[in-house]
């Protein structure tokens, strides 16, 4: 039973160069805690000091943005794919 966490290129330096990490299923916060024990610097780039998702970082469980689900309480099930995605945005 496992989930995969895709690490974006900008963050791979904090994950030993790996493109994917593996964790046990659970709530998203538990999955992130697990990868944070392995790659603590990675976790600090995803979560702010208050423990919430940073403004410029999005996390998807499969194809769903967790901001439109239950944020860090979003369930991540066996076989799910978590993707950490920095935002690209702007405008006039």
């Amino acid at each position: 039973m496992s989930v995969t966490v895709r690490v974006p290129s900008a963050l791979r330096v904090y994950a030993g160069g790996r493109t994917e990490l593996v964790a046990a299923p659970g709530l998203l916060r538990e999955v992130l805690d697990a990868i944070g024990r392995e790659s603590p610097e990675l976790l600090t780039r995803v979560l702010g000091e208050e423990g919430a998702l940073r403004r410029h970082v999005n996390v998807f469980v499969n194809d769903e943005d967790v901001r439109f689900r239950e944020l860090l309480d979003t369930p991540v099930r066996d076989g799910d794919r978590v993707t950490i995605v920095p935002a690209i945005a702007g405008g006039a």
Partner: protein
Amino acid sequence: MRRRIEVDADKPAVLMPAAVLNEVFAHAREADPEECCGLITGTDAEPYRAVVRCRNDMTRHHQRDPVTYPRDGRQGFYMNEQDYLRAEDEAEARGERITCVYHSHVDAGAYFSEMDQDFAGEPLFPFPDAHHLVVSVVGGQVVGQGLFRGHAEGFVGRAVAHEPT
């Protein structure tokens, strides 16, 4: 506090292949009245080789959560993440990389706005070495463009012109 950055008219224009620039212009016109966004891929030797259009999700985010996303797609862009991840994967498979991020401003100039700088200067920005092409669309037509590059002292804007054929 940041200010918008304009094109420095004293610097020489950056040249781009006509096919690439025209494809960005076409995307900007078709997206009007919303901003368009996308990526340009290439290599060190040929940095502006191909255009990948991406979806602008700003209106969708605004409709779902107007507090977090106060702008809609007429005043902003939010690049669809799946689109840009796919573009990055496909570029890597071709031996290319993302060299430029482009978007349009509607009824506004081709400057690098405070919001543009806010995201592009973020430490986690996925393509920190990429240039930023901004296209101005007024009245449905492209009326200007500028290319912005990050330097130690901040972003610098230059004019963009077609490569001579």
